[in-house]
């Protein structure tokens, strides 16, 4: 790990100003992803700004009938929050499907959104990776790609966004709230938060330099069965090959987003009208234009079947 200086700011705006002003400074919250990457020298910050003490750790009701989740609320606490369990079950289920008990106790809401890809070529510093080292190429495209993206990727990068929580937040139409170095605030729909790689895969999100996530807000609860179904190589503690976050009403209508298939949680609202017709009608539209590799073409059929299982569960 490279050496770094460390500080605890006294306010979110001060934290943002510090990171904006210092080259190579980074926020640290739970640290479970950042420290892992620092040990491998994939991330090499020279200054860490610890945002744990800023009071961003509460879940509060909003005047609109939704919830405002502080950026520093731990995954365990969010999954166990009584309001989340009752009204946003898909979010609890997604959180509980991710990582391990120890990691969920540290990992935060904002940090989870900022989790970097788990592409094995991003992690292997001996391999070319445009996300890790812009312009170096992509070893994954012609490499072992069974875990990687089937849609939304580019010639420069086929990495996936690895998380579960954000897939549920996408189907819940969540909004990310931020503060910048000047104290200005911004609201970013979660749909616009993660970027597609294009020719700049090193930039994961639409956050600006020094911009700090302060909260994620959820609108009023959507009535229906809240289901998160994750398919992975083992029964627990593994990243999704494919996941489905869904809210399905009694009449078979609803909303659905997919994880493990793209550089961001993948939702095509225009396909949701076909939910009463069954899984294939939906996934044909959701994955129109997909460019799978030889290794990961299985994900298209798996996504259809996983959605089929979700729709069966919703009818049961």
């Amino acid at each position, binding site marked *: 790990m490279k050496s*770094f200086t460390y500080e605890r700011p006294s306010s979110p705006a001060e934290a943002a100003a510090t990171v904006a002003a210092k080259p190579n400074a980074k926020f640290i919250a739970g640290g479970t992803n950042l420290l892992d990457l620092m040990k491998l020298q994939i991330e090499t910050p*020279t200054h860490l700004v*610890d945002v744990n003490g800023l009071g961003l750790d509460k879940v509060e009701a909003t005047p609109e009938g939704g919830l405002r989740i502080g950026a520093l609320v731990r995954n365990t606490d969010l999954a*166990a929050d009584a309001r989340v*369990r009752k009204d946003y079950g898909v979010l609890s289920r997604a959180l*509980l499907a991710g990582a391990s*008990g120890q990691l969920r106790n540290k990992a935060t809401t904002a940090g989870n959104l900022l989790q970097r890809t788990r592409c094995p070529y991003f992690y292997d510093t001996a391999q070319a990776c445009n996300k890790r080292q812009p312009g170096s190429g992509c070893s994954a495209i012609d490499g072992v790609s069974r875990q990687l993206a089937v849609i939304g990727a580019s010639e420069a990068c086929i990495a996936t966004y690895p998380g579960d929580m954000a897939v549920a937040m996408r189907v819940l139409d969540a909004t990310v709230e931020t503060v910048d170095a000047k104290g200005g605030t911004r609201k970013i729909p979660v749909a616009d938060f993660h970027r597609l790689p294009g020719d700049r895969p090193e930039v994961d999100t639409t956050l600006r330099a020094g911009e700090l996530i302060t909260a994620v807000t959820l609108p009023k609860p959507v009535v229906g069965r809240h289901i998160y179904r994750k398919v992975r190589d083992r029964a627990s503690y593994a990243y999704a090959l494919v996941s489905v976050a869904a809210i399905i009403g009694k009449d078979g209508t609803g909303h659905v987003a997919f994880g493990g298939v793209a550089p961001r949680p993948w939702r095509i609202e225009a396909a949701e009208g076909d939910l009463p017709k069954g899984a294939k009608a939906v996934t044909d539209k959701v994955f129109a234009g997909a460019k799978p590799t030889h290794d990961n073409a299985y994900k298209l059929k798996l996504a259809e079947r996983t959605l089929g299982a979700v729709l069966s569960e919703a009818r049961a």
Partner: protein
Amino acid sequence: MQSPGDLELNRRDLVAGASVAAAATAFPGSARAQSTDAEGAVLTKMSLTVNGERRELELDTRTTLLDAVREHLHLTGAKKGCDHGQCGACTMIVDGRRINSCLTLAVMHQNDAVMTIEGLGKPGDLHPMQAAFIKHDGYQCGFCTPGQICSGVAVIAEIRSGIPSHVSADLNGPYEVTDAEIRERMSGNICRCGAYSNIVEAITEVAGRQA
């Protein structure tokens, strides 16, 4: 020339000695090692409570909680397995929550209360979970055991405090101490010897006794 005392060096001392020798080669002279340029260590003072005892430390900011406890406080119960949060051998209970101590910086735990396997119990005064692991043969080589035991203690507390899991049938509870619940909640602790079924029996027994 070696004195008899030198021959009593244990493996840990030898490894530590070799590391010091390597560091001396890389950084001739102490002034260089203490410099504050981009390559230099940044030292910081901090304090925390470990197993009920207040400890003051001066640490390189890079020091993980695991390394602070093992290498600076010489409590070597918690183990460094993967050092990347994948195996759970480093599990400690910090402010009542189990965490991977390898994936958190010591400086981020100013004034926190840390519980390691040494604080749970000791020979002659074992924690019920330690006694149950012995009774049920919940280990072979023992390397993962301190992490398994700390995790097992925390799992029972998590179930009792109403934290659901991936396998809980109803998010709103009640949550039972079933084999499926224990296996899911313990999935962050790997045992390469494969003592899992006995670990589940040990945790089940302790949970039953506390019910």
